[in-house]
């Protein structure tokens, strides 16, 4: 079978199948997974080297140690480091080096008992609770709560009183006590893994509950298990040393770290050196375990901060200044008309994916009282374009050129402070997830009146009346009741209405709507679209509507800009573009849309576009759609400008548009040429991925 992926034999029903499977590969996969992290920081490399050296040295101790642990050298009692005794001797003249390393294996080994018992038991209980359902979980959780409320030290001392200083047993009991905490950590993770769809798929396959836990849940927990193990290992060592220090260590002549520290503490004044070697070794070992735990626990890309770094901010400032210098805001744009000219957005030249362009050379105008649709598939740059209008591009992404002209200002070159004055008042945003626009901690009324007061500067009572008015405006019948509810108490459609009311609070002249109906039911979508249409009619504001749904465009938009791979490929009046598309991509999208046909017209097969939207780093300088286009020819292998499409002021980015129109060609529903869809997507760099993320 495929190396690396052989499912662990979870099922005793198939011994023959299980026997064939190599067992080692799975472990090697797990090691590879955590290994790269283990060697990512100098601290954890040092930790691994130290622990490995300690174990090797201790296990081979009889072969190389210069003295036996009980050998007493009365000529050198309480001595410092000498040629004979590298680390000095204790009060009986015993060699410290020998005693420390001889006892290391015991200390580490018994600490491992704690680790295995604590992590093993905790993980097992967590997997059981997550798999077996609510009742079992409740029982296990109550039991662990009781365990956590028990005083651990008292129990361990009681056990010592009853059975003596049986170190392995004591460390095992310590493990049981700690397992309650581990269970807590693991339970949440195991439950979230259990809710994944691939678990459902495995259940449909008929995989047993135990098989699912072992094959799908346990591998997902590995990372946490390893981290917790490293940390508990350190705790176990410290507790063991502590017990030996208060006299509950191994029987007397036998060396132990805690016992040695205890002995040293009696000679703190006359022989302070005695404390140093043992203390240092114990401290270093604990530090090593913690360093390893920290390294393993680090999220894979924890270094990529979401806050703009100083370098990124400087970069952005420089870009803004450069744009402001090169393009003085031209004033020929009418009031409340948005005019975007040659807008480009790219990943900053600092960090991963640097310099990749996400939007190139996008131009469009939105006149007051009109709706512009930005339409295209995921990864075509429509959301980036919309967010740049509000100066809300994610960190690491910024406008790299062009102008966004709005009431005499170039927003592409506006400072954060300027944008704060425009957001909400001049230009407002509604997003795909209405619940994200609302804070779950506060009532709808509190959030709405707060926003109204901030944006309009009016008193509390007036704001309340205004909030009521806004809710009625967005079609909420029992506005007074809704004001008192919390966001989680209302439905998604209602929440989107509230989000729209919130966006209207500052009486904006332009509303940027990023897929506002995608998460809603189709009946609710129709209501929200009607609401937006009547708002546009009543208030004269304009809307930039980002959507992937051509039906939504047909319903609401006056103008539409079709985007493909970061550029506008066709722009013009909605009716002329949807009824008479000129660009092959628009043609293809319409042909692939099952909504475009119904009844007897529904085709046997839908038309498809082979392959997928290329990654931004792979955008060619030629026609970006040529690789997937049915009509592409040699003429397409040069950069294509936007050309007048012949209908009104429409433009199209296709050299063959006229030819296609004359011949009346249609995008054909052909079989997907297999060689086109074979190219696998390589995982993009982290920054590019965030940048392209499209809520669609």
């Amino acid at each position: 079978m495929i190396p690396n992926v052989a499912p662990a034999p979870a099922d005793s029903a198939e011994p023959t199948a299980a026997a064939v499977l190599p067992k080692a590969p799975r472990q090697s996969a797990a090691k590879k997974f955590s290994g790269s992290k283990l060697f990512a920081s100098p601290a954890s490399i040092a930790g691994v080297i130290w622990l490995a050296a300690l174990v090797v040295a201790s296990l081979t101790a009889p072969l190389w140690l210069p003295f036996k642990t009980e050998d007493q050298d009365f000529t050198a009692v309480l001595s410092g480091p000498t040629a004979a005794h590298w680390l000095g001797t204790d009060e009986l003249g015993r060699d410290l080096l020998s005693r420390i390393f001889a006892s290391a294996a015991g200390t580490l080994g018994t600490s491992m008992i704690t680790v295995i018992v604590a992590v093993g038991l905790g993980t097992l209980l967590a997997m059981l609770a997550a798999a077996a359902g609510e009742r079992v979980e409740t029982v296990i959780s109550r039991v662990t709560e009781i365990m956590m409320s028990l005083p651990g030290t008292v129990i361990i001392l009681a056990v010592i009183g009853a059975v003596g200083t049986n170190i392995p047993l004591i460390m095992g009991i310590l493990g049981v006590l700690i397992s309650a905490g581990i269970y807590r950590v693991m339970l949440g993770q195991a439950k979230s893994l259990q809710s994944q769809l691939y678990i459902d798929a495995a259940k449909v396959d008929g995989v047993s509950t135990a098989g699912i836990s072992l094959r799908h849940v346990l591998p997902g927990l590995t990372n946490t298990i390893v981290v917790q193990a490293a940390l508990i290992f350190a705790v176990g060592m410290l507790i063991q040393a502590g017990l030996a220090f208060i006299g509950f260590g191994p029987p007397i002549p036998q060396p132990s770290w805690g016992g040695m520290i205890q002995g040293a503490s009696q000679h703190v004044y006359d022989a302070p050196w005695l404390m140093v070697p043992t203390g240092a070794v114990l401290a270093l070992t604990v530090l090593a375990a913690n360093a390893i735990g920290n390294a393993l626990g680090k999220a894979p890309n924890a270094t990529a901060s979401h806050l703009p770094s100083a370098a990124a901010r400087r970069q952005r400032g420089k870009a803004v200044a450069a744009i402001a210098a090169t393009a003085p805001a031209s004033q020929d744009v009418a009031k409340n008309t948005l005019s975007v000219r040659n807008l480009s957005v790219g990943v900053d030249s600092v960090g991963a994916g640097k310099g990749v362009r996400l939007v190139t050379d996008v131009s469009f105008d939105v006149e007051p009282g009109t709706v512009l649709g930005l339409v295209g598939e995921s990864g075509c740059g429509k959301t980036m374009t919309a967010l740049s209008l509000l100066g809300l591009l994610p960190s690491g992404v910024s406008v790299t050129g062009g102008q966004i002209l709005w009431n005499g200002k170039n927003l592409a070159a506006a400072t954060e402070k300027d944008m704060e004055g425009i957001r909400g008042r001049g230009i407002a945003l509604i997003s795909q997830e209405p619940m994200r626009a609302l804070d779950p901690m506060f009532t709808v009324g509190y959030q709405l009146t707060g926003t109204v007061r901030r944006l309009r500067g009016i008193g509390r009572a007036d704001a309340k009346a205004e909030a009521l008015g806004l809710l009625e405006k967005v079609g909420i019948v029992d506005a007074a009741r809704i004001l008192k509810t919390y966001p989680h108490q209302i439905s998604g459609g209602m929440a989107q209405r509230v989000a729209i009311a919130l966006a209207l609070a500052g009486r904006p002249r332009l509303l940027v709507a990023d897929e506002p109906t995608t998460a809603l039911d189709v009946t609710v979508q129709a209501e929200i679209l009607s609401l937006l249409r009547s708002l546009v009619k009543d208030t004269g504001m304009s809307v930039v509507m980002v959507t992937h749904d051509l039906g939504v465009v047909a319903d609401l938009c006056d103008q539409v800009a079709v985007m493909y791979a970061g550029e506008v490929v066709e722009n013009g009046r909605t009716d002329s573009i949807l009824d008479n598309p000129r660009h092959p991509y628009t043609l293809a999208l319409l042909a692939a849309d099952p909504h475009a046909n119904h009844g007897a017209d529904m085709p046997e097969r839908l038309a498809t576009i082979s392959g997928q939207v290329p990654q931004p780093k792979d955008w060619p300088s030629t026609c970006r759609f040529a690789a997937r286009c049915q009509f592409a020819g040699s003429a397409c292998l040069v950069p294509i400008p936007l050309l007048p499409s012949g209908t009104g002021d429409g433009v199209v980015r296709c050299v063959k548009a006229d030819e296609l129109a004359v011949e009346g060609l249609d995008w054909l529903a052909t079989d997907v040429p297999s060689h086109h869809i074979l190219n696998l997507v390589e995982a993009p760099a982290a920054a590019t991925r965030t940048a392209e993320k499209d809520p669609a």
Partner: protein
Amino acid sequence: MSTATSVRPEAPLPAAAQPLLEVKDLVVRYGRGRKAAAAPAAVDRVSCSIAPGETVGLVGESGSGKSTIGKAILGLQKVSGGSITYQGKDITSAGASQRRALGSELRAVFQDPNSSLNPRNTVGSSLAEPLRLRGVGAAEARQRAEDILERVGLPREAVDRYPSQFSGGQRQRISVARALICDPKLVVCDEAVSALDLSTQAQVLNLLADLRDERGLGYLFIAHDIAVVQFLAQRVVVLYRGQVMESGPAAAVTENPRHPFTQALVAASPVPRPAEQAARREARESLGVRTGAAAVPGPGGCPFRLRCPLATELCASERPALRTVGGSDVACHYA
């Protein structure tokens, strides 16, 4: 898909004597205890059947119980009442061993291509899992995984890759491949294309249609988008708040809906032709269906009555039974 259309074998007759799957008066309640018993059921006495090789679409809004029905059929959801029969065998509360026997014939494709494949396993391992479980050897499982990948339009080398190396559409193809690898008879597709972009959605829909014609598969196609359902399904069942509102041939239900809710649902689905859409919008507004935001009906009666333009006192007191109107069965006193 002209090539596929011309060479494909005759589709098996849907009108076989015994249905492949029969759901009768299915009831599902969430939670347990007195409180749950008093709450309206998530699925309330739903009946439907799927003939071999037939595609039945299950449509409704969120919360209509359509996914719950799919889960109940797959054994992922406990059933409170009614029965589910697969090829004459009662599988309503099938145990693990019966499920395992069933697992190769009754399979699923889920909505989210990001979470329906275990990110820690290679594609080959995920594909092979159902085969290995049934005692297929490692080499043969790999061979079959490669074959099925090729069939869904992915390279054979994909077996050694991880799900994160594929795009959403490709991952959904892999999910389809996983469902088809043990030659099933019925596949439950739960919103299998809703997370995909238009062009990839069309690719996956075509693939599902091809496989149906090639292998005589039956689908239970669960979706909120009636246009998508219409493309694939021969029959459509419309759900509202856990109850069947209308069920019948796809063309009849979508072109000539009888139930006020189906009418609203069909009219609300926008078409990408501005003039036609404007007419549809007007038609939708003239239906007079009220917004669903605050309409939580009490028990008994028709669940749609608070939004329905036709509702009378009768609708509050008596739950309308399904009766045949035109070509379909409609649960409405006034349809």
